[in-house]
C-alpha cells in the first residue's frame, strides 16, 4: 500500500484523466437525451446568459450605430432607388399571378404549407474557435425537439418571412437547447440549386467558410446561383434558403465541382432565431 500512499497525487490525477477519457468515449456516440444533471445546470445558467447577452447586444448595436451615421445618407439614396426598382418588379409578378390560374393554385399551396415556428433568443455562444455552436432559451417545455431545424426570419405583420437557415438542434433541456450552426464542420447539408435542380452536399470549414461539392460534375453552375435545402436524409427541413454561390472551382483530377457559398446570414450577429417544429 505504501506505493499508493507515496504517489497519492499522481494517482488522483491519473484517475481524473481516466474518468474524463471514459466520459468522452461514452458521450461521443449519439445519445438519446441529456442526463438530469446537465438539464438542471442548463436551467440555472440560461437566464444568466440571457441577461448578459442582451446587454452585450445593446453595446455592440450602439457602437455599430455610431459607425453607420456616416454612411446613412448614401445608403438612404441607394435604398430609395432600390425600392422603386422592387416596386416595378413586384407589379410584374402580381400581373403574372393574376393571369394564370396555375400559378394562383401554386401560391395557395405555398401559403398552406406554413411551418410551425417557435421564436427563441440566443443565450450564449461556444467559446473557442473550433466549432460554431450556441444555446437558445427555448426547450422541451416550448415544444422544441432534438433534430429540429433552426432558421432566421423577420416578422412582418404576424407573418414570418424566413431569411435563411441557421442550424440544427442537437440537444434539448427543459428551457434551453444546443444548436449547431451550418458553418460548423460537424454539419453537412444536402442542397439543391433552384435554377437547375442539381444536388450536392456542403459543410462548414474551420476558417468560417462553407464549401461543398456537386453530385454531378457536369452540372451547370455559375456564381450567384441560389441554394436551397433539399431535405435529403431528413436532417433539415426542405426548401429553406441557404445562400448563394460565391465561386466555382472545377477539379478535373477528382472529377468534382467544388463550390464556395456565401450564407444568407451573418453568423457573427445572431440574436434571435426561429425553430421549425414539425
Amino acid at each position, binding site marked *: 500500500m505504501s506505493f499508493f500512499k507515496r504517489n497519492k497525487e499522481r494517482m488522483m*490525477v491519473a484517475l*481524473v*484523466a481516466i474518468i*474524463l*477519457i471514459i*466520459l*468522452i468515449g461514452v*458521450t*461521443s456516440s449519439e*445519445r438519446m437525451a441529456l442526463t438530469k*444533471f*446537465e438539464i438542471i*445546470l*442548463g436551467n440555472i*445558467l440560461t437566464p*444568466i*446568459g440571457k441577461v*448578459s*447577452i442582451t*446587454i*452585450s447586444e445593446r*453595446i*455592440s448595436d450602439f457602437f455599430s450605430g455610431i459607425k453607420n451615421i456616416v454612411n446613412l445618407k448614401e445608403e438612404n439614396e441607394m435604398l430609395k432607388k432600390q425600392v422603386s426598382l422592387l416596386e416595378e418588379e413586384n407589379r410584374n409578378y402580381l400581373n403574372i399571378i393574376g393571369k394564370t390560374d396555375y400559378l394562383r393554385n401554386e401560391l395557395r399551396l405555398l401559403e398552406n404549407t406554413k411551418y410551425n415556428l417557435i421564436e427563441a433568443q440566443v*443565450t*450564449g*455562444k*461556444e*467559446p*473557442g*474557435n*473550433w*466549432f460554431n*455552436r*450556441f*444555446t437558445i432559451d427555448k426547450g422541451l417545455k416550448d415544444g422544441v425537439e432534438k433534430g429540429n431545424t433552426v432558421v432566421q426570419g423577420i416578422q412582418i405583420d404576424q407573418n414570418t418571412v424566413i431569411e435563411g437557415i441557421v442550424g440544427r438542434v*442537437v*440537444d434539448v433541456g427543459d428551457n434551453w437547447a*444546443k444548436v*449547431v450552426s451550418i458553418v460548423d*464542420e*460537424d454539419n453537412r447539408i444536402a442542397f439543391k440549386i433552384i435554377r437547375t435542380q442539381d444536388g450536392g452536399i456542403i459543410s462548414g*470549414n*474551420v*476558417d*468560417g467558410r462553407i464549401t461543398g461539392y456537386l453530385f454531378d460534375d457536369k452540372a451547370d453552375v455559375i456564381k450567384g446561383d441560389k441554394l436551397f435545402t433539399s431535405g435529403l436524409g431528413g436532417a433539415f427541413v426542405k426548401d429553406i434558403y441557404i445562400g448563394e454561390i460565391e465561386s466555382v472551382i472545377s477539379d478535373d483530377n477528382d472529377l468534382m465541382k467544388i463550390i464556395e457559398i456565401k450564407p444568407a446570414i451573418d453568423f*457573427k450577429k445572431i440574436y434571435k432565431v426561429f425553430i421549425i417544429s414539425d
Partner: protein
Amino acid sequence: MVILILVLVVLVNLILQTTIFPYISVFGVEPNLALLAVISMAIFKGRFYGSFLGLTLGIIQDILFSPVLGVNSFILFFAGYLVGLLESKIIKDNLFIPILLSILGTIYYNFTYYIFMFFLSKNISFISFTRHVLLIETIYNCVLAIPIYKIFSKIYVAPKIRFGSK
C-alpha cells in the same frame, strides 16, 4: 474566501466568454479566456486550485455547448495541473512568465483538441486551422494574458506594507 473567488471566476468567465467575447473577435477569432484564467490561477495558487478551476470551467463549457462531454475539461484540467507544478519555481512579479505560459498554453490547448477531434473522427485539417486561427489566437491570448494576470495578482498578492505617507 478561496471558494468564493473560484465561484466568482467561474461565473464571470462564463458570462464574458459566451456572451461578450464573440462580438469582439479579431478576424473571426476569439481569445480563450478560460485557459488564461486557469493559467493565472495555477501560477498563484498552485496545482490543486489550478486543476480544480480547469475541471470546473471545462465541465460547464462541455455541458452547455458541446455534444461530446469531457474534451474541454480534460485539456483545462491538465493545463491547470501542469502550470501549477511550476508554482514554487517561478517569480511571480515577472510579466514575461504569463505571456510565455499563455503562448505555450494556447498551442497545447489547440493541439490536444486536434488530437481528440482526430480520434473522434472529425475531419478537420490542422494545417489550415493553424494558418487561419491558431496564429491569431496565440497573439490575442498573450496580449490578453497581461490584464488577466494583473487582476489575479491584485487578488492574491498581499499588499505591500508602507511606512508613513507617500
